[in-house]
């Protein structure tokens, strides 16, 4: 076989059902690992790999991989030249030994600087042999959340690996993985196609899956897969229309990308079943019906054209049922008791107003020495009282909401469905006749539950949401509980992320330092301990902020260095910085800033500058002084308006005068008065330059640091 015989390579790992979130992670990780491996072994040809996954398989197809890589010259360093030959120029035993070990004639050794080098022609890699050697390590290195052992002779993996398919063109690669031997078949859908399907050649893989009733998700087709599933769900739902004539079409599926993804991770052949439930269950708040169906059945709810919830559901299934009617009855029979249970809990909860549960709060202990839910409630009330004036939110409703905020944790419904925390407080408060702003705040204060969730929309809700997160964050930090590595038992990263998102939404604007101080105060921490913890909390939140903005590290660091007090302020600076860097002269400004820093680093602070410019300062120096004075006047005002764009423009405009200054003026003048004056001028300029960000931290083309 010729060495440059590039052909498509298919690698499919057949598994028992992989957890939904790990399917794309693993498939992508498998692709990257194989690609690196083929590059390293010089087996990879041109072309983008394709990636697919289903619950039971991870697959990668490379358009061009060769069976053998060509022989190549390997260079092995040997002894130093000085040790290789004796004084008479004869090879030393060290050299002879090295040559023998490398299998090279001593006369054919080469020199590389001061060393002897053996150059050998080495055989290239054989695809099958190399893969067999690499696979166990490669699989162990994939991005797995949690590994398990199921067999003695296969590497631990997320779920058991049961099949290995390796096709190079039409050749089945003779590769073993433990007791598994690579084959040229793929497995079909469990029920629709129980027999294996032969894949004639690597490129036939997608067609083979289709034959086998398997619909994979591909890396570039995730949106298409969601849309496909949504279409199937909508079609299934429409079959119910004739049974529910009072709900005008078109019906709308409540769109929920997360639920769609979760479901896709459980399906090899997306299909759907739609069913109805008794209208009596519509007594339940809509949120409850939605959560019950979602959590227990991973099913979707439907609304009619007026937006009214329809007493029906639609659930994805992994089967084109031979008897759809029976399948539907099966699902309805499962849904009914779930809703019945929820309704039982709801009615039971409604026997007592939310307020009555205040008494029970002291019975529920919190972890990490944070006292009871009653203690938390008291801290939240106090914190709300402190924050309301700072953030400009009316206090009465906020205090009432804070007081009731933990009560729903004691309801039966939240006991059964923790996902309803907050939501339940909201509708119970509304039913109890609490003020609208109170019930809205209760429903909103748990938002965002996770990244991407909606944020509180009402000021009171946003305030309570902030207070809740501050209470947890400050309480935990005060007790030395901080996330480390993978472990974050109190969910502090999520709390911090939520806090920042709420502030970024712009309903409230808060100074982080002040917020942390108040949060610590309700945990009875003050003085130097408080200052230190405020610092730690600020750093912790900066880390979260960096992942929210996903900005260039150097730009983020440049802004972080000036310690913006609020996430909004941080974002505006970052945005201004990004657009300023588009200007051609940005590089020059950054370079000047670095230069100024270098000069200032070398001078000592001890001597005060002269009161007025020494006589006879050159025009370039005078011009710069004038410019700095003007900027010192203008910039604070611009900063107050957070007009960072203009500030940066002004700074960029200094470029010409600075250039002239550095070209014509020597800062370290032998004359002390001149030197001190010019240093003081640069210090003033440096301060102005840091108005938006620490510019010297920015990497620009051609800069070294």
């Amino acid at each position: 076989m010729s060495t440059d015989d590039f052909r498509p390579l298919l690698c499919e790992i057949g598994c028992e059902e992989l957890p939904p979130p790990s399917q794309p992670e693993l498939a992508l990780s498998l692709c990257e690992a194989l690609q690196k491996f083929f590059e390293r072994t010089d087996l990879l040809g041109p072309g983008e790999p394709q990636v697919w996954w289903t619950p039971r398989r991870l697959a990668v197809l490379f358009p061009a991989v060769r069976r053998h890589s060509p022989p190549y010259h390997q260079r092995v360093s040997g002894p130093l030249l000085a040790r290789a030959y004796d004084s008479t120029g004869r090879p030393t035993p060290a050299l002879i030994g090295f040559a023998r070990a490398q299998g090279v004639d001593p006369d054919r050794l080469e020199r590389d600087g001061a060393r002897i080098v053996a150059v050998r022609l080495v055989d290239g890699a054989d695809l099958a042999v190399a893969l067999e050697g690499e696979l166990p390590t490669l699989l162990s290195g994939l991005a797995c959340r949690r590994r398990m052992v199921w067999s003695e002779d296969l590497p631990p993996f997320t779920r058991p690996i049961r099949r290995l398919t390796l096709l190079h063109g039409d050749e089945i690669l003779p590769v073993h993985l433990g007791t598994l031997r690579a084959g040229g078949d793929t497995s079909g859908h469990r029920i629709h196609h129980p027999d294996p399907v032969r894949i004639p050649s690597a490129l036939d893989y997608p067609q083979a899956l289709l034959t086998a009733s398997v619909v994979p998700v591909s890396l570039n087709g995730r949106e298409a897969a969601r849309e496909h599933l949504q279409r199937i769900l909508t079609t299934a739902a429409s079959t119910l229309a004739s049974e529910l004539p009072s709900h005008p079409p078109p019906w709308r599926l409540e769109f929920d990308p997360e639920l769609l993804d979760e479901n896709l991770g459980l399906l090899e052949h997306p299909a759907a079943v739609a069913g109805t439930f008794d209208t009596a269950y519509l007594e339940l708040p809509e949120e409850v019906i939605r959560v019950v169906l979602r959590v227990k059945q991973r099913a979707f709810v439907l609304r009619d054209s007026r937006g009214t919830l329809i007493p029906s559901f639609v659930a994805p299934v992994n089967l084109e049922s031979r008897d759809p009617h029976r399948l539907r009855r099966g699902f309805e029979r499962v849904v009914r008791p779930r809703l019945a249970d929820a309704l039982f809990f709801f009615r039971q909860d409604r026997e007592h107003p939310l307020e009555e549960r205040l008494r029970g709060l002291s019975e529920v202990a919190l972890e990490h020495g944070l006292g009871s839910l009653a203690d938390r409630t008291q801290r939240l009330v106090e914190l709300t009282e402190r924050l309301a004036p700072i953030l400009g939110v009316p206090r009465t409703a906020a205090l009432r909401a804070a007081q009731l905020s933990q009560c729903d944790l004691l309801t039966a419904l939240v006991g059964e469905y923790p996902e309803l925390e907050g939501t339940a407080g909201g509708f119970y408060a509304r039913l109890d006749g609490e003020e609208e702003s109170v019930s809205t705040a209760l429903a909103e204060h748990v938002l965002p539950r996770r990244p991407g969730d909606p944020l509180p929309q009402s000021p009171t809700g946003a305030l309570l949401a902030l207070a809740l997160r501050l209470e947890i964050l400050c309480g935990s930090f005060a007790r030395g509980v901080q996330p480390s590595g993978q472990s974050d038992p109190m969910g502090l990263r999520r709390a911090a992320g939520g806090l920042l998102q709420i502030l970024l939404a712009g309903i409230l604007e808060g100074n982080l330092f002040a917020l942390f101080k108040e949060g610590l105060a309700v945990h009875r921490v003050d003085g130097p301990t408080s200052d230190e913890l405020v610092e730690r909390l600020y750093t912790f939140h900066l880390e979260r902020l960096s992942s929210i903005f996903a900005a260039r590290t150097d730009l983020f660091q440049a802004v972080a260095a000036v310690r913006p007090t609020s996430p909004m302020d941080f974002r505006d600076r970052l945005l201004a910085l990004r657009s300023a860097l588009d200007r051609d002269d940005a590089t020059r400004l950054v370079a000047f800033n670095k230069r100024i820093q270098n000069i200032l680093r070398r001078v000592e602070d001890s001597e005060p500058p002269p009161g007025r410019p020494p006589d006879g300062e050159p025009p370039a120096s005078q011009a710069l002084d004038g410019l700095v004075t003007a900027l010192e006047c203008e910039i604070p005002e611009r900063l107050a308006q957070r007009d960072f764009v203009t500030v940066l423009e002004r700074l960029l405009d200094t470029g010409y005068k600075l250039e002239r200054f550095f070209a014509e003026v020597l800062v370290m003048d032998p004359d002390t008065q001149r030197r001190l004056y010019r240093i003081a001028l640069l210090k003033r300029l440096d301060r102005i330059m840091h108005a938006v960000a620490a510019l010297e931290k920015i990497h620009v083309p051609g800069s070294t640091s």
Partner: protein
Amino acid sequence: MNPGFADVVQSLQGYWAEHDCAWIPPYDLPMGAATFHPQTFLRALGPEPWRAAFFQPCRRPQDGRYGENPNRSQLYYQFQVLLKPPPYDFQDLFLTSLSALGIDLTTDDVRFVEDNWESPTLGAWGLGWEVWLNGMEIAQFTYFQQIGGQECRPVTGEITYGLERLTMYLNGCDDMFALPWSKTGELSYGDLYRRYEREMSRYNFEEADTDILRGRFEAHVHDALRLLESGLVLPAYEEVIQASHSFNLLDARHALSVRSRQDHILRIRRLAQAVAQQYLGVKQPAP
């Protein structure tokens, strides 16, 4: 004719006996899950292969509903299958067992949904799935990774069927107490257990004497330690099972604070770990 509760048990026993699983009697001590059965807990340790199947009454005092909730009870039955090491076609064997019960896999939707199992009291965990039949959990499917704090090598594959739910589904029945006990007789599940559920729920939630329970817990823990020191591993393990049940009762009575609850769990776990170590002959001082 639809199978009764006892028929389902018999059918599963027959099916797994054909697949070389030893039929083991249920254990005669109250336990929260079949995993506590010594033939599960201890057999999952060590290198010897093991294939067994059995049904086991399980008690979860907190799940009692006075016989009024059609889906919940403080006593229920699990059917457990253990295959060590798990065979290549373990999932297929399970699916075939459903067919043997009369579930039509071309009509009903059966899926394996990620669910990771952990028993804090037994110091045990494993990875696997809950099995959904048309969206209802009917079984738990687990590859044990650790038991009593010991790595399992080889691992044991465990299937736990929820017998009541399965039979309810096969009968199209929404109330467990209305289930026929067998397809031939008049007897229902409720005839056997309704009154029992009512009275046991009262005991679990209202009448259980917490002082006595605390005393029992301490006595079982104490005795387990003593027996471990005398090298009597199996009797010590029986004390662990009973300590765990006393703990469950105390929990149902809300007699434990969060911290003391954690503490009780930890004490049982330490004992379970010591039992596992001594069973394997690992020399360790008793906790």
